[in-house]
């Protein structure tokens, strides 16, 4: 009997303590409005009644990366008034022959436009594009469309480095706030970053994020830990924990699972997310998240196919197109004035006065200012600015800049 009472008492204490940690819902300030308006999708053309779009996704809604694509395609479906049988979505399609089989099956079902969302799908999409010349194939994040030079195969990306930079501003301001509060010194301000691979998309992402933070917190440094996988909940969580143990005061990530955000929430470390809001599960650590909004691209390719217009071989959407998006800002975690600072930077991007990879703002090899960089034989540093996504839509900025410390370039422990 005593044991039972004791157990009951312990349960009661645990319940109370859980509630004691989180402030009651109504005391939270919650999320701000998104600092830039969402892309508006308008239908100013006719869609054939028998038009069908096929979408191939690597994972399903469980992955924030894929969820971001699914939300976009469903939003466009609704805006364009398409039925479920006109937008056929295949999830959990691996980066192997399954991808080609899925694409061919979508063509069999009458799709005249097929989209795939994962980097590794590319060579299988090209295989399908060669076999079905009457169908348009669009691939996000790929790099080979220009070289393949097929009339029906296209690559797409967005200037997400601008979104990362904006999110970096929020991170830098949070660090400043913590420095002012006396939690650590300006020299100790260090960001931890969980990356997938030492691939240009990741490098471009963490560098722009770092430069955004540095624009407001000049003493900041950054440690990057790679997982060697795009989606691995355990590894991403472990990497975040290791970075926190190394003294990182704030974490961000370029990997697709909830591993890192959840680890931050557990450790009470602020987190800048990617691909979408993690506010619902991480109310005490989430600051802001940048993501690519694929809706403008889906709207664009559907319009092209239905108006017999050619699709860009390399399409790169920016802030103007609504392809770069930020979530609202968690006012309970973000530093004061974050919303205003981000809005000011957005205006500068729109006016063209702010460039993320301005070589005046970073150095390589302990203090050298880069002056020349070739991508596929084309010079991409013009007037002191590294022009990202100009030669191809997918990012190619892969310089290792000073201030960022790569912990495991070989993906080991």
């Amino acid at each position, binding site marked *: 009997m005593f044991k039972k009472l004791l157990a009951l008492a312990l349960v009661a204490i645990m319940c109370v303590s859980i509630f004691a940690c989180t402030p009651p819902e109504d005391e939270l300030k919650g999320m701000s409005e998104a600092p830039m308006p969402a892309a508006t999708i308008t239908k100013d053309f006719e869609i054939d009644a028998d038009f069908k779009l096929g979408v191939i996704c690597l994972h399903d809604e469980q992955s924030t990366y894929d969820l971001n694509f699914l939300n976009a395609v469903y939003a466009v479906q609704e805006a364009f008034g398409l039925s479920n049988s006109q937008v056929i979505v295949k*999830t959990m399609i691996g980066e192997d022959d399954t991808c080609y089989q899925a694409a061919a099956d979508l063509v069999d079902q009458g799709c005249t436009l097929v989209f795939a969302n994962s980097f590794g799908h590319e060579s299988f999409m090209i295989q399908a594009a060669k076999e079905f010349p009457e169908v348009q194939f669009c691939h996000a994040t790929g790099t080979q469309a220009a070289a393949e030079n097929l009339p029906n195969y296209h690559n797409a990306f967005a200037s997400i480095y601008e979104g990362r930079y904006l999110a970096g501003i929020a991170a830098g301001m949070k660090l400043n706030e913590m420095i002012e509060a006396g939690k650590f010194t300006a020299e100790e301000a260090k960001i931890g970053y969980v990356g997938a*691979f030492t691939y240009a998309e990741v490098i471009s992402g963490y560098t722009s994020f770092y430069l955004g933070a540095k624009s407001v917190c000049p003493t900041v440094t950054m440690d990057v830990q790679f997982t060697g996988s795009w989606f691995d909940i355990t590894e991403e969580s472990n990497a975040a924990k290791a970075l926190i143990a190394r003294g990182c005061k704030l974490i961000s990530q370029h990997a697709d699972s909830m591993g890192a955000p959840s680890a931050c929430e557990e450790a009470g470390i602020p987190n800048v997310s990617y691909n979408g809001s993690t506010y619902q599960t991480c109310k005490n650590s989430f600051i802001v998240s940048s993501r690519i909004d694929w809706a403008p691209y889906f709207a664009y390719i559907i319009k092209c196919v239905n108006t017999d217009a050619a699709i860009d071989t390399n399409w790169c959407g920016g802030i103007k197109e609504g392809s770069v998006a930020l979530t609202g800002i968690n006012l309970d975690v973000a530093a004061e004035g974050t919303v205003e600072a981000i809005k000011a930077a957005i205006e500068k991007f729109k006016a063209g006065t702010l460039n993320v990879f301005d070589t005046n703002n970073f150095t390589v090899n302990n203090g050298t200012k880069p002056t020349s960089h070739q991508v596929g034989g084309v010079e991409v540093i013009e007037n002191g600015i590294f022009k990202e996504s100009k030669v191809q839509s997918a990012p190619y900025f892969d310089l290792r800049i000073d201030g960022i410390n790569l912990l495991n370039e070989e993906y080991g422990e």
Partner: protein
Amino acid sequence: MMKVHESTKKEPLIHLTKRDAISWQKSILIRAAAIICALLFAAILITLLSKENPLNVYKSMFLGAFGSERRIWNLINDTCILLGISLAVTPAFRMKFWNCGAEGQTLIGALTAAACMYLFGDKLPLPAFFAVMTVACIVTSAIWALIPAIFKAFFNTNETLFTLMMNYIAIQLIMYFLKLWGKNGSGVLDRMPEYRFPIVGNQFLLAIITILVLTVLLYIYLRYSKQGYEISVVGESENTAKYIGINVKKVIIRTMIISGAICGLVGLLLVANGSCTVSTTLVGGQGFTAIMVSWLAKFNPLYMILSSLLIVFLGKGASQITTDFRVDSSIGDIITGIILLFIIGCEFFIHYKVHFRKKTKEEE
């Protein structure tokens, strides 16, 4: 005292007796009843969870597997791949050597095929290249299986853990080579279609024929050859095997080499007759599914055609449900799980008879 006790002892409400033998008509009847029960039970869950009409859901499952010529060929091809891996684990299982490493053994075969393509595809004339690649895949996978077999035979290590760990090593090896060979550190190796096996009839037929021939060969080997008999004896009792002069160590090693070699062949087919590249998810857990396929078929290669077809059909049906109804992919997995559970569960009723307590008045 004892007698009094016995006479007052109540017969239990339910008791079981082992059936001697069951007519094949009756066993089919029990299995059919199990499938119908599973479909009914799953239908109730579908209605509760997704609010869809269960009949539409089943139709979607069926069409997902048989809906077009391409889907049927895909179904047969995928069945054969799973069947191939299941064939590989079977000889070891009959010997009660729990080979949980088919995933890794197949991946090593696939990695070898991709490595051959990447490293010297352009250095040999195609027919010679195909021969070298085939031999290389079979040999590397056989070696991968041989390692745990040697440790089992000479040091009596736990083969389940050993083979499981070898899977992780295989996956890490692939990651290592992808990092080495993938362009710009993306971890992705592009297709190398110029080194694909020639198309025989259609893109699938070569794999299908190879696996079906292999199925018959393995059936004959296990059933009618001396070595097949030795495997069974070692599986029944190692001591008996030793007593009648079977070299148990030799049988373990020889059988695992066969297991690995078959895995290598399947890995080769996955790459050279399919993806033309390798990734860590290429085998996709089929090395573990194969264990279930083999058990469901009671280690009989011919029955395994049916059990692998069933599992591949359920998988294809489940993903079609997700596409057609835009429900969470777990709904399809739940249906698959229920159907498999009922099918495995009905084996119990095939082997045992259930008796309920008869109401008798004299028993007080």
